[in-house]
């Protein structure tokens, strides 16, 4: 499957048009939900950290520090990727699966079009190159959400929080988050595409296939997250 996917696109202009369409469907339309979730998760992480740091010996700026680390290392890349696996994964499986069961993929093949390349490659490129942007925004909004939570609840001061997020910034952690995001983006595009492309039957099977795709994508992300963390951070 991947050999056919990564062939050179048959027509540059059509490929560019597909990229723009996928950028809108898989990228732009995922920005809102990712931003919303990141903002609130950031707030929750900050509140929970503040509530658990009741020892007066522990400086308050650690709340901002812990929130920043949690958001960059785990919540933004992994949590948001799992959300995207559900949203984008089901969209990819159902759109390709519907094309399969209504013979639209056969129609592409009969025309002489490499359907895997035409349908899947723009999705992979879009997710791999656009999701780091989404996750970067999610990181920013998550940390910002933590600050807003502090302002609203009064559990920690703005100065402590800002001191905390400025403390010991390691740029590799951001690189690590982006590497994870790109690997997860590849998984989010390919596993659902596989399930959609090879679906057999009718609309019920397309629905079942979408569910299966989301489950397998989420499981793969969780497992890969473990191995990537071990490889990159240990």
């Amino acid at each position, binding site marked *: 499957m991947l050999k056919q996917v990564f062939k050179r696109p048959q027509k540059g202009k059509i490929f560019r048009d597909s990229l723009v369409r996928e950028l809108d469907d898989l990228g732009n339309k995922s920005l809102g939900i990712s931003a919303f979730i990141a903002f609130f998760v950031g707030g929750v992480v900050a509140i929970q950290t503040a509530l658990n740091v009741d020892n007066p010996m522990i400086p308050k700026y650690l709340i901002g520090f812990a929130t920043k680390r949690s958001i960059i290392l785990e919540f933004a890349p992994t949590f948001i990727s799992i959300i995207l696996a559900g949203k984008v994964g089901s969209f990819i499986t159902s759109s390709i699966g519907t094309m399969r069961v209504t013979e639209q993929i056969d129609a592409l093949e*009969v025309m002489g079009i490499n359907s895997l390349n035409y349908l899947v490659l723009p999705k992979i490129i879009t997710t791999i190159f656009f999701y780091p942007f989404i996750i970067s925004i999610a990181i920013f909004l998550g940390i910002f959400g933590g600050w807003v939570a502090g302002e609203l609840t009064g559990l920690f001061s703005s100065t402590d929080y800002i001191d905390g997020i400025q403390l010991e910034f390691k740029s590799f952690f951001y690189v690590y988050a982006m590497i994870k995001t790109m690997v997860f983006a590849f998984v989010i595009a390919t596993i659902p595409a596989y399930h959609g492309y090879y679906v057999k039957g009718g609309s019920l099977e397309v629905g079942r296939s979408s569910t299966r795709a989301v489950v397998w994508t989420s499981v793969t992300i969780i497992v890969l997250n473990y191995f990537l963390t071990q490889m990159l951070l240990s």
Partner: protein
Amino acid sequence: MIEVKDIHKSFGDAHVLKGISATFEAGKTSLIIGQSGSGKTVFIKSLLGLHTPEKGDICYDGKNYGNMSTDERRYLRKEIGMVFQGSALFDSSTVEENVMFPLKMFTNQSKSEMLERVNFVLNRVDLVDANNKYPSELSGGMQKRVAIARAIVMKPKYLFCDEPNSGLDPRTAILIDNLIQEITDEYNIITVINTHDMNSVMEIGEKIIFLQHGIKEWEGTSNDIFKTDNKAVTDFVYSSNLFKKVRQAYLMEDKK
């Protein structure tokens, strides 16, 4: 010419095609008929390369499809037009975009040239003022016309139709049959049609192949079908009283 030699195709334990051979010539409309489950769709999809037969050869103008490289197959497919049973139109594209798609993909024509060609083929299939409609806004007959327009827009050498009349009223079915016949004559192409429709058999069947249980049971013309004593064919074709009467009338006329 398309030559099919002894093709076999199985799905698991189901041996669907059991050694079918046939030839299809340019300028002729060939019909594949048979009951549901006789292997018609698998046969036509094998000709198109959508199924790979386990045994046998399919030759397009002397070139064995099985021995072609992926790129050669894709090149050949540019010369093939296909009308699917459910039309298989791209449902998120308009009629114009559907028909223009092969031109965009395989030619370097300007937008105005492509539009001219699209309008020409849409006129050819009697579809006017439908350019900006989506497939879901069209009737079944109109969708079939769009599918035919898309199939012929690249001026194919081979046209395949899977049940082009299914789900259509008798009048529209005849119009679609006539349209396919006219296109076959006009472009001198090889047309292969899968059908259940006995009107099509009588109207446009220059060559008829009857499949039963994955075997080619009978082959002839629409005139031969009136005279045949082959029980499987007569049981299938003359299962309706109307066609029984048509046959009796034909045979009486023939005796005179």
